[in-house]
């Protein structure tokens, strides 16, 4: 621990960090563009300059150095004295801001970044109210640089964060600074567009409105969102994300800093993979089927009817004829509630784990990196909670089957009552499998987000919610348990899985992840305290 003095206040900071980092961590809002904690340091924006005390060359006494020094590039040292609140520093910030805004088009009313723009924020805090520029502004062109982002060169401040991202994080090197000095522009090599699996991040790290997402272009103003903190369900890594929604429509996903998993990044697959949640073809309401007749059920009736039907079935056919397939898309709490309900009805019941969608291999960035050098990883396992559900199945004990074994057994008429949970964003039940399972169960509950082949013969069809509508926790591939909040309400007629499973499992009142985790903690202490990654202050990166 080094002790340094910033603006006459003593600050304890970690060793090996820079003054800017120490000041940001201690709560100072020091303006900066080029500095990003995840990227190398170039000290090119000159906005974070500070005054520092140094020994006077003649007298040896400590005195303020005659020139300003970049705080982002100066490592902390015990006993260091710096200040940001002096007139010299403030004048530099004012002057720098004036230069940054010299050629800026000031088109905030039509700019997507408005509201979350460092140029706006810093201009307001550190800049001047009016421009003294009398000459014609240089207007740099807009450039179509790739399938996802669009580059507005006229708004760019040449902080080079995006260039460093492609060189240091994605390792794909598509971006560069073309020309130099006042003519600098961000560019790609013509015909070699910015096209990699993590390109969406350049939009996030752009402190101004220069790099914008084509998918989000002109869709919404940033201040209209009511965001929720969530975990990406795209793969087993479980990156921390923020769901930006307004009036139950999700407009975009943004990464949230989490040093344990994803740092500042997420992949495009996760970022744009949420579209299915607004699909029209989703299962709309609970259904009860008796022979040919189909009844729409009220949610209030469901717990009693289901419990009654399962009890009746167990009495008639015995408990070992009951099976449930849990999905790796369920939250831990939901899986636990369903497991508990099934085992309460029939202690000998078999529990199984649904299929785990797998791709060929993990993707690591920078491209080609190994071991320590890996900065970001996309798992080949395309579901968020395989490990969580496995942990719950393990704790539940009794008969636990792999999905293949379940199909095998079900095909051999081993089960006459089954509860099958889907929730996969893509079709998951193969035709052959569905055919094998078809006609085997007298009592079949199918809980899924999209219609599947088994629904036509299911006794009960329960709509499932997407992760954005649910609350709970996922266990990622490294065994880290992370909570996520619901961001939007489920569509009309659909109830949160957690809530109805809570009621079906015999509890009353409102479901909340925390409440269920307290119940789970009795047998699984890991769930006693599940904490989200700490929130960062504004302008922390």
């Amino acid at each position: 621990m080094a002790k340094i003095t910033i603006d006459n206040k003593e600050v304890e900071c970690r060793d090996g960090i820079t003054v800017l980092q120490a000041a940001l961590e201690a709560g100072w809002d020091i303006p900066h563009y080029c500095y990003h904690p995840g990227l190398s340091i170039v000290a090119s924006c000159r906005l974070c300059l500070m005054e520092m005390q140094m020994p006077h060359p003649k007298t040896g006494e400590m005195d303020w150095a005659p020139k300003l020094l970049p705080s982002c590039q100066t490592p902390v040292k015990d006993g260091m004295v710096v200040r940001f609140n002096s007139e010299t520093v403030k004048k530099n910030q004012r002057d720098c801001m004036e230069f940054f805004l010299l050629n800026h088009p000031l088109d905030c009313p039509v700019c997507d970044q408005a509201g979350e723009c460092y140029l706006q924020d810093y201009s307001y805090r550190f800049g001047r109210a009016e421009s003294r520029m009398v000459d014609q502004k240089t207007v740099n062109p807009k450039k179509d640089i790739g399938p996802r982002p669009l580059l507005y060169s006229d708004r760019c401040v040449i902080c080079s964060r995006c260039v460093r991202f492609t060189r240091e994080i994605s390792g794909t090197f598509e971006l560069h600074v073309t020309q130099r000095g006042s003519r600098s522009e961000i560019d790609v090599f013509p015909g070699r567009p910015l096209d990699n699996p993590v390109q969406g991040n350049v939009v996030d790290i752009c402190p101004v409105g220069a790099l914008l997402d084509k998918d989000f272009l002109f869709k919404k103003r940033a201040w209209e969102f009511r965001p929720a903190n969530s975990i990406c369900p795209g793969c087993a890594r479980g990156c921390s994300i923020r769901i930006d929604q307004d009036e139950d429509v999700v407009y975009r996903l943004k990464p949230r800093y989490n040093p344990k998993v994803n740092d500042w990044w997420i992949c495009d697959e996760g970022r744009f993979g949420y579209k299915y949640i607004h699909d029209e073809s989703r299962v709309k309401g609970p259904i009860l089927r008796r022979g040919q007749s189909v009844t729409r059920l009220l949610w209030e009736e469901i717990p009693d009817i289901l419990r009654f039907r399962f009890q009746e079935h167990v009495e008639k056919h015995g408990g070992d004829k009951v099976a449930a397939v849990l999905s790796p898309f369920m939250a831990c709490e939901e899986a636990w509630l369903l497991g508990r309900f099934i085992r309460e009805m029939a202690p000998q019941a078999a529990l199984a784990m649904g299929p785990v969608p797998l791709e060929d291999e993990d993707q690591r960035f920078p491209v080609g990196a190994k071991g320590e050098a890996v900065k970001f990883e996309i798992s080949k396992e395309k579901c968020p909670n395989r490990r969580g559900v496995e942990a719950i199945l393990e704790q539940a004990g009794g008969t636990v089957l792999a999905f293949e074994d379940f199909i095998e057994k079900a095909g051999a008429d081993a089960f006459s009552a089954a509860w099958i949970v889907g929730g996969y964003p893509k079709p998951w039940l193969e035709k052959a499998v569905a055919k094998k399972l078809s006609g085997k169960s007298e009592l079949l509950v199918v809980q899924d987000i999209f219609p599947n082949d088994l629904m036509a013969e299911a006794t009960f069809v329960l709509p499932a919610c997407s992760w954005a509508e649910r609350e709970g926790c996922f266990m990622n591939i490294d065994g880290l348990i992370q909570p996520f909040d619901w961001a939007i309400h489920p569509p009309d007629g659909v109830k949160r899985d957690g809530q109805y499973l809570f009621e079906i499992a015999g509890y009353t009142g409102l479901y909340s992840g925390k409440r269920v985790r307290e119940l789970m903690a009795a047998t699984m202490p890991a769930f006693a305290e599940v904490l989200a990654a700490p929130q960062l202050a504004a302008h922390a990166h």
Partner: protein
Amino acid sequence: MSWKAIDRISPVIEKDAPPLLSEVVRGKIRSFFPRYETKRAALLPALHIVQDALGHVPYQAMVEIAELLEIHPSDVLDTVSFYTHFWTHPKGERVITVCRSISCEVMGGAGVLEELKKQLSIGEHETTPDGRYSLVTEECLAGCDHAPCLLINEKLHKRVRPQDVAKILADQDNDRLDVPRSTLFDAREEGEAPAAAKQQSTFMEGRGTKE
């Protein structure tokens, strides 16, 4: 509507175009590899060699250099566009470079530039229709004590006044250097004559040539 984005996605290089860099040029570039720890470091010599051989560095040449050096073409374009010395499009036989920096500006450099534009009937970054002259401006020619100055290829003309421009342009030897040219970056076939506009500076001569 002014809302128009430049297309940077469509390729600019013809597919299946024959290679632009000859084996001699490639060999010359490779000969620089052992001097450095990484192949990337040979980028500047490579660009000099290519510009020497082709007169300019077109996009296709950048891609071929990138392949040789095992870097992304974007990195090559970064460097090419940083140095005004490198041309991405064909240039005239002689390149006139006028300083636009402070010393020359206060000593009347702008007047010289205006006169040049008038005499040549071209603007900045343009080439005369006969391909004889190209005109560019440059930040500083390191000749502040002789301001205003201009370069014709590698020959520095000092203390130029607007009325001198016609005389300089009329001089056939206005680009002749007083010292011999370096052959450090030459990649010519045996017996091939040096092409026009292949004047190279002597600044690298004697440096890094240790065998």
